């Protein structure tokens, strides 16, 4: 038994290297994803942030038609980059609502004026309450909400050109 015991340290080293090697060659995805994909959208009711655009509530979503929920802010640089893609999605017939994180009416109005306005409604989330409720960890993020009010897909980060077809397809396939 002693002879076998002597090999335990060597085997322990092999195990540690296996773990380390795995960590190096199959690096874990560092993005924090929402765990709510597949679950119903949490209940929330946000007041409007700019005059002329309604606020956003969960009731806007379980209408039978899939919609996009875009989490953004005027101080978020990649949101500027993704604005044209959102406009393109709107052109393709996708309905988009937004939650504005920690923002002010003036800044949002300015942002919409500069970058275009694809949104049907924008909710005012001053303390990231809805962002936390959704399991979102930053801006921008986009959620595909099915017609039954379930979260179908989460897209973390800004929407690039290559993401647009996938999102359109996801919206079409969602029921």
């Amino acid at each position, binding site marked *: 038994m002693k002879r076998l015991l002597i090999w335990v340290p060597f085997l322990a080293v092999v195990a540690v290297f296996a*773990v380390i090697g795995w960590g*190096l060659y199959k690096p874990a995805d560092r993005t924090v994803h929402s765990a709510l994909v597949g679950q119903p959208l949490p209940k929330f009711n946000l007041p409007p942030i700019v005059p002329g655009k309604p606020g956003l509530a969960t009731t806007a979503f379980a209408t039978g038609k899939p919609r996009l929920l875009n989490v953004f802010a005027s101080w978020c640089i990649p949101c500027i980059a993704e604005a044209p893609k959102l406009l393109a999605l709107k052109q393709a017939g996708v309905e988009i609502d937004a939650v504005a994180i920690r923002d002010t009416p003036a800044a949002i109005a300015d942002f919409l004026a500069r970058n275009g306005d694809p949104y049907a409604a924008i909710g005012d989330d001053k303390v990231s309450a809805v962002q936390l409720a959704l399991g979102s960890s930053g801006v921008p993020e986009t959620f595909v909400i099915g017609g039954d009010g379930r979260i179908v897909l989460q897209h973390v980060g800004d929407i690039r050109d290559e993401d647009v077809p996938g999102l359109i397809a996801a919206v079409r396939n969602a029921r």
Partner: protein
Amino acid sequence: MIAEAGLAALWFAAALALLQLVLAALGVWRSSRFSVRPELVEGHRAAGERPPVAQGASTGSARTAEEGDAAKRVLTDEIMAAVRPVAVVQGLLVLLAMLLLITVFARSDMSVLLVAENSHSDKPMLYKIAGAWGNHEGSMLLWVTILGMAGAAVALLERTLAKPPLIATLGAQAAIALGFYAFLLFASNPFARLDPAPADGNGLNPLLQDPGLAFHPPTLYIGYVGISIAFSFAVGAMITRDVGPAFARAMRPWVLGAWIFLTLGITAGSYWAYYELGWGGWWFWDPVENASLMPWLAATALLHSVTVLATRDGLRAWTLMLAVVAFSMSMIGTFLVRSGILTSVHAFAVDPTRGSFILALLALYIGGAMLLFALRVGTVKQGNGFDFVSREGALIANNLLLTVILGIVLIGTLYPIVAAAFGTQLSVGPPFFDKAAGPVALVLVAVMAAGPLLRWRRDTLAAVFGRMTVPVAATGVVLILLATMSGIALLPMLGLALSAGLAVASVAPLWKRNLRRTPLFTYGMVVAHLGIAVSLAGMACDTAFTQATLVAARVGEPQHVGPFTVTLDGIKPVIGPNWSALEARLSARRGEDGAVFYLRPQSRYFANPVTVTSESAIATRWDGQLYTVLGEPDGTGRWQLRLWWKPFVTLIWFGGALIAIGGALSLLGRLARGRRAALREAYA
């Protein structure tokens, strides 16, 4: 030219490391083949005594054979004699390379890529210099410098060890150095040029622009990399099959020296994080912190084990294994910090290809050493046995418990990767480590209290309990006192009670002793164990008794925290060498009639790179620290203030310093005794 000279010095050092390895390997192989020299036999004979000649052999052929053998021995001796100077020159060359890197940083030579990426001409000179090791390549060069200098130190200073194991040790050190030189030269060249040179650099991360950067990495590395000597000693001993008290006595001062620096480095890092990060935390079980703790745990176990081997010729396999594990943990830690596989605020930004290089090196060195252990340890003569209740028994318990804590820290640190392999992302943090390692550490504290009071070889439980009555009473009294106070969690309560018992028990070996004739290393043990008790008390007090006041304060409005009343007098802008800041003046007084004193926490804005840091203002008293931080304004004329009263928190680092002082006393004591013994022998 300076950068090129540095690179050349590095190449030369690498070449010398190769030479050192070749010579050492050749020397050790030849010495085992061509003679059974007296020094190899465990019972030393005096130097100079010739080995026995075969009976009745004085024919011509026997004489020629003897002469041939003598010639071979002379050549072997010459080869082995060459190793030490080569090691010394290698150490000096790599030191030169490091100094040249520091020079290009000090001169803000932006044509060197590393300087352009990590430095800025506006920085104060201290941070220009310290910034040399505030990045991956520079700190890797520091790593290799200490490795080379450690080898040089052994070559220069080690006199007690027999030649073959010493040369084998230097060979092992050279083998390790060679791999890391290769890593530096081929994958992390610190001296790469940038053409065209930019006007100025990117600057150093403001969190690092602190005297801590000048102190913490070098101290930590001297310990962290210095423990490579223990690894090399162990490998050398396994190769030459010379594992005995002589080996342990030779290795002990080196282990102590590295351990002292490692203790200081970790203590300094903890204090730096405490005052720099602005939330009053001093240990986060962050992967990089764990990476420095694991070698410390192994080195602590090693330095206890090596004494058992030196004095009682026991625990041979343990000593070898711990020596290998300690430096293995250092190397794994180095890898973890630079490979990007773990998320940490400390981690260097490195790309994964470098990670692969280090991983290959690690597999070679650690796997090789463990293989050698498995193959050789069985043939190492087993030392003396001892009873379960004995000091050796307590030291085995000490080794085991430290190894268990090491295992817990290792698996906790690596587990997120394992979980990712199973498809889930999870975090392992203080709740796990406190729950898993905390109780084991408390048991270890209890063993530490009893250990020095146990006799060697065999003792009885009754006698031990007899000697432990006062410490146990102290623990009991504190426990009862704390239990009557409300709101203290179990772990800090036990920690504080046990620290009281340990403090009493650590001084116990001095009772009834003639204090002037007590050896210095006994004082070392007393002070070091007392340091652990003090540190533990500090940790428990901070966890149990800290009071916090987080508030949005108006100017002139008094706030209360602990026994203090703190008022925000005003905010004013302040300009520094490469930052601008908003400084709050806080006037504080203790109780109703304490003298008013002022604290000036700042919120600092750096331009390169663009960052905001908070500089805490701390007032230290004999019984704790008042820790103040200025936050953001809330737009209505109030400023966020974070105020803490942390009773006895300074004991944590004071205890750490005591531990290091205890180690230093032990080292001095051992060296003094060794010198006296050598003198006695010389004049005998």
